């Protein structure tokens, strides 16, 4: 009986590792296909995703601007 249950576990392993590898392998193929298609039809130029994130983040942007300004200011001083 105990040999049997270990046999089952080994079968689970076969099935599980198989599915995991198949899934990830198809995923690799899909990534490559996607990269190929995108490179072909949307070469180089930045895609149509609007940068509306900036609207939400003006606080961050301002802080960044301030930091940049101060950095510059420090550089100029030294």
């Amino acid at each position: 009986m105990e040999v049997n249950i270990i046999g089952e576990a080994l079968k689970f392993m076969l099935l599980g590792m198989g599915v995991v590898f198949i899934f990830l392998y198809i995923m690799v193929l899909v990534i490559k296909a996607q990269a190929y298609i995108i490179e072909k039809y949307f070469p180089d130029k930045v895609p149509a995703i609007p940068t509306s994130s900036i609207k939400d983040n003006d606080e961050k942007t301002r802080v960044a601007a301030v930091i940049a300004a101060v950095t510059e200011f420090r550089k100029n001083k030294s």
Partner: protein
Amino acid sequence: MKVKQIFIALALVFFATTMSLQAGGSEQGATVPDAPTQKSVQKPYESKTMSELTASFWQTTGINAIFDLNDGEKTSEPKGVAYEREMNWFESSLGRIMMIIIAFILFYLAIAKNFEPLLLIPIAFGGILANIPLAGIGGEHGMLGIIYNMGIANEFFPLLIFMGVGAMTDFGPLLSNPKTAILGGAAQFGIFGSLVGAVAIGFSLQDASAISIIGGADGPTSIFIANRLAPDMLGAIAVAAYSYMALVPVIQPPIMKLLTTVEERQIVMRKGRKVHRLEKLLFPILVLMLTIMILPESAPLIGAFTFGNFAKESGVVDRLSDTMQNSLINIVTIFLGLAVGSKLAADKFLVVETMGIMIIGLIAFSAGTAMGVIMAKIMNKFSKEPINPLIGAAGVSAVPMSARVVSKVGSDAKPGNILLMHAMGPNVSGVIGSAVAAGVLLSIFK
């Protein structure tokens, strides 16, 4: 002073009006016939002498509860009193003290060694709270029990964590070098190998499956699966998963060094190709579609994960993505940690199974690490581009610790050789791989 006058005037008006007007109304209001009595029945209090009062207070102290071995205290169960049982003397005394000491050790690891403090501190503190005698904090009406029922028993919190992790994950390194995804598959051998081990030492197939998911090195996935397949062992499984994730910097390096030569560890990998923004945007959707087609059982996990990632990569809902990555995941982390900690109650944790779970968990982590490294060695043999075998170890997931460990071991072997980005590929594909493995196990026992 004006405020006082207002206050006094108000009190007088209140007093006068209420008294006179309620006189007629209150007897009507006070009785609710044919309905559950609104006034909770209070036990009649019997007069006690001062020494009786002191003695009865002594009964409620923790010192007494711990030293009185036959007080017949009950366990605390989030499912309610019907599920409670009487504790044995060990659970109600020495066991509590042992668990509190274990909590202190976890504090030490979290604070002094900086091992996963975000998880270990809430878990260990929850562990202390769960071991307090008489307070019933882990019970249905206690703080930990309330949280447990709110988000662990129904698998809600693990999914929210996964959503937040998705919003924090950058799939760029994986997209840039997709074949490293295979390493995240090999490391799942940790799951299935330890499954065989677990049945060998006597666990049932279903329990063994729940335990072996610790090898996925992924806390939310472990809780999700344990809750489905073996809810009684959820506590020990979650604690083992998070503890070993915290211990990744201790467990992995020796195995990595054992299986690789110094030359292999010194291999420098080439920088991957640049990834188009559209690829990152579409990737979570593609993974979700694959999951739907191949393995819907993994869809809750991968769905939450890809939702977070898609929200981030869409670039148009930064408000939501920031919330997932910050306030939401932080709140859920606090709650999840405390609730998992409630399973560190002596009566739940100090059982024979726990030792088995801890051992199997360690084997799972080690086997996953080893198989990841071995697979990377094989790929290095057959690949045109050099692959440093160390990055295979990151396939266990434990994002981002194991990738950091890989990078550290790599730069120890060759200073300046930064493997972090190369290790992130297997690392994030390890998360997907674990979720897929989890789905396979669920589908078997469906």
